[in-house]
């Protein structure tokens, strides 16, 4: 199979490309720059072609996606810094470009990688399913533009080129600079805080499971498939209290775990203030807390995984505890120590 992956240089993207290569697929990696990560995919029996380009550039996509059977669309602008236009051009227009190119080249399907935050309304999620996206999120441009992109992507699913949306929930793993990286950095600097004592039960996804779910989606997506035109939240299916996960990350990275506790109400108020103030400060870095983050960290978020497992024929292969052990080994290797196992 010939599979194009946009945003291939991200943590999930690189892991996905590696999995596809190892099983012998031809992979077209579409990314903005050469990856400088030391974890380059190890060459498997498959074949890798890299195209440098931006999803806003329809012409570049048109070249890259030639003869592809399936496109996995990972490229996105994440975070909270930037104008709505910047988010919209990458996330909404970029997605439109990817799907248009896939349709033009006769791909049988597109796996659109989305985020559970598209359906997040601030309330706890206890055993929830992939709810329809909400297309207004105040000033949180990332979930808003991803919601619009997902809705349009699924609406474009037809009998020639089918689209499935996969929403991995809180992906982490070795080399992860987003979730684990930030927690470890804050812990090192003594700035670690937990919202509401960190007792909310949250689902997370070990990166290899996120990648294997995308591989399963690649194999499943086709016109007429059960998953065509639908959205799925993907996770390990092993929710844990946030505090327990954060502590485990710190233990894996061998940094002190001395969190301050911020009550949920306080965190929400701080988040709202930051939301209003950050753009006026013209800061380029990520703010310490947003209203969205406060809700995410202070309320339960875990999902019913039965339909994703049934429709994609997928189960996570790495448990949370196995993932934590691998994370510990990765940090040990980085410190020049031998793995524990």
């Amino acid at each position: 199979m010939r599979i194009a992956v946009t945003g291939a240089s991200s943590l999930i993207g690189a892991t996905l490309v590696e999995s596809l290569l190892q099983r012998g697929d031809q992979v077209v990696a579409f990314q903005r720059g050469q990856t400088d990560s030391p974890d380059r995919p190890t060459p498997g029996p498959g074949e890798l072609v890299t195209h440098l380009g931006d999803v806003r550039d329809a012409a570049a996509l048109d070249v890259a996606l030639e003869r592809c059977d399936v496109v996995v669309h990972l490229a996105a602008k994440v975070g909270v810094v930037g104008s709505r236009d910047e988010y919209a051009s990458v996330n909404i227009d970029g997605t439109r470009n990817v799907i248009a190119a896939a349709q033009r080249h006769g791909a049988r399907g597109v796996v659109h990688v989305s985020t559970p935050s598209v359906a997040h309304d601030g309330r706890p999620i206890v055993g929830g399913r992939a709810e329809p996206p909400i297309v207004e999120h105040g000033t949180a441009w990332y979930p808003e533009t991803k919601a619009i992109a997902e809705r349009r992507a699924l609406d474009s699913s037809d009998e020639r080129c089918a689209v499935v949306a996969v929403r991995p929930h809180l992906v982490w793993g070795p080399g992860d600079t987003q979730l684990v990286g930030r927690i470890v950095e804050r812990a090192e600097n003594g700035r670690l805080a937990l919202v509401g004592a960190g007792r909310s039960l949250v689902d997370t996804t070990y990166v290899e499971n996120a990648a294997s779910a995308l591989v399963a989606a690649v194999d499943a997506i086709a016109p007429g498939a059960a998953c065509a035109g639908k959205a799925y939240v993907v996770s390990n299916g092993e929710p844990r209290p946030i505090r327990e996960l954060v502590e485990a990350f710190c233990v894996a990275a061998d940094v002190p775990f001395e969190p301050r506790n911020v009550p949920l109400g306080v965190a929400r108020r701080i988040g709202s203030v930051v939301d209003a103030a950050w753009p006026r400060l013209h800061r380029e870095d990520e703010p310490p807390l947003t209203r969205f983050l406060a809700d995410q960290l202070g309320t339960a978020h875990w999902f019913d995984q039965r339909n994703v497992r049934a429709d994609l024929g997928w189960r996570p292969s790495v448990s949370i505890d196995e993932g934590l052990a691998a994370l510990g080994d990765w940090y040990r290797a980085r410190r020049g120590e031998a793995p524990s196992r």
Partner: protein
Amino acid sequence: MDRPDDGTWRTWGIDPAWSRTFDVPGHDGITHRWHLLDTGPGGPDGATVLCVHGNPTWAYAWKSFLRRFGDDHRVIAIDQLGMGYSERLGADAPPRRYVDRVADLGDLIDHLAIDASLPLVLAAHDWGGAIAMGWAVDHPDDVAGMVLCNTGIAVPAGRGAPKIIRLAASGPLRDLVCRRTSTFVEGTVRLSGRRISRQDRVVFRAPYRGAEHRRAIADFVGDVPLTDDHESAADIAAVAAQLGRIDAPVLLAWGARDIVFDDDFASDLMQRLPHAELQRFPGANHLVMAEADVASTVDRWLTDLLGTDREPRPVVQQHTSSVFDGLHRRRAEHTIAVADLAGRDRIDFATFARRVDNVAAGLVRRGLEPGDRVAMLTPPGIDLLIAVYGVWRAGGVTVVADRGLGLRGLGRAVASARPAWTIGPRTAGLASTVLRWAPKSQHIDVAMLVGEETGSTELPSEPEADALAAILFTSGATGPAKGVRYRHGQLAAQRDALATTYGIGDDDRLVAAFAPFALYGPALGVPTAFTDCDVTKPGTLTATALDEACREIDATMAFASPAALANVLATADDAAGLEGVAQLRLVFSAGAPVPAETLRAVSALAPDASIRTPYGMTEALPVADIDLATIDRAELSGDGRGVCVGEPVEGAEVLVADLDFDPLAGVPTSVPVGATGEILVRAPWVSEGYLARWETERTARPGAGWHRSGDVGHLDDDGRLWVEGRSVHVIDAADGPVTPVPIERAIERALSPSGIVTTGRVAAVGVGPASCQQVVVVVEADASGLELADRDLAAAVRGAVDVPVAAVLVIGELPVDIRHNAKIDRTAVAERAIEFLS
């Protein structure tokens, strides 16, 4: 009457196609225009359910029936003449009397040409009930079943007509209240309060706007025969007298808060229709079908009624022994029968037997009739035992609710049994009146009753095996306390099962450290002793108190709750030479899971005793039995999944059914040995059923005498039964059901030697929606309230079990039930865990 338009019907939740009118030639020679709601033909196996409303409602009262099972059955809800959207009778027409109404119903039924090949079920409410019964007694063969909701056919014995009706029915006031103003309509609708919607209130009033539409309401009220010379009195009395002709199944669905057709009317109908089943709806008032989910209950009842494959329950076996055998055998003896160490009192068999007869005679003299319910409000002691056997001897039914339910639970339990009599100290009499436990009962002072010498009163013959003997109450640990009915034959069979299982003979002497167990003493014919201990706090029994009771009667057996045994062990070190305990040949304990360590320690105090623990429930005891040695063997050899409760006792059968089995579909098949499922039991001593809970009884009794225990577990290769928890506590995880006890046991075992936790109880509960619940483990430890466990404890817990555990929490003390102070209230634990983790 102008009918509402289609849009209005739809707004009301009624399919406009159901609304139909008919011109029906009447028995009075006049053709009347009737309106009714008719769902049309139902399924091939359906019935015709004809619903007759009361005053002042209309067909809309049956909306829930029409909607709930209008597809499966043909549901027809009529508007009586002059009511709802049927024609209004002329102003000069004479008021329609009861006989006219019954004949009207007959006219309509004949005219509708209801498919006679389908069973006809009548459903009726309020005055509609009297009218439907009037038609049914003349057509008993045409009626396949009846559902009666808050209605009546006669004012119950010993009381007058409801005051409120009396007031409304009195002459000039009647016209004012019923016709000229909408007071009567309004008042009826308001009784339902917020249990019916605003819209319901509007729709109930809709056909009765304007005095010209309300004439029949006043006529109905005027037709209530408040005096014997009333025009309709004789007609209604005739129907009441013939009610026995109806042998079709009858379901009484009763709103318990109705002040007009109250529980007394239900009891009156139960006496006239002894085969009727009763389902009370405690929160509901008069318009019960609109206020509570009566429709679902009736739906299931109809399924049952029409189904043919249900095996009938075997009739109570004509048990040859009786609960009086023990007393008969020893009634000449002057050896000790009962000793009360708390009350410093004792009584011999001869005196005990004589007092029982005296009490029975005293009760008969006071007017107690066989079948009367008698609430036993006497604290445990000699007088209680005499009173219980006295009530039984007189043919009464003892209502036994113990203080272990808590005072409120006790009051509620007594009230639900509606006793005609209460026996107890003066304070209990006050409580039953002031706290309204039994406001209509007659109180008898226990000391006076027991002290009476018999006069010349002739005692009735001893009750038959199938006579109702007792109403006991479940602990309420897993829901509200439910009344459990026992017949005499079942109690006698239970006594015999205990005697067989434990080899109890005339040489045995029993210490009842769990006070209610003393009731078995006289039936077994063995001397019995109460310990000196607060009966409401069995956990305070000291080793000295137990030993004292043992020595008092030279005891061979002692029965104690697990909590009592634990305290006995805790206080044993300070006690000097427990010789009374040491000579016991049998110690048994039940009521909640008994830890093996407790039994082992007891064995050290009573070295020659066989240490046993029966398994069972209020509805069926004993089911299985196990001794300490077998527990130890099972723990070593078994798979450790749950708590081993031993083999079924002689005469009892156990069946393990699939967790998802449908109790309405008959007796389930067994799952393979080793597989987990719900435990069902069958034995001659399984209770008769529940009190005023048709629904509960129906789902608990799938047929052929089997009783669902509500426990889950499995049978092992050696035929031993293992309990894995309560079925309501099974964790409904995505990968299949997870039973709590095996997880809890595995964690307890893993934690105890590690020294991580010192106290030791563990609860495994599910959080999240059905079929994708996550397992959360809560461990008792040194904590204030609920907290996340630390990293080491969480790792130790996860390492001990092979199911994914989402969270490990610690808690200072797990919530437990009141009665046994031992059963973990996992439902409460789960609620707290969900709150904590969200």
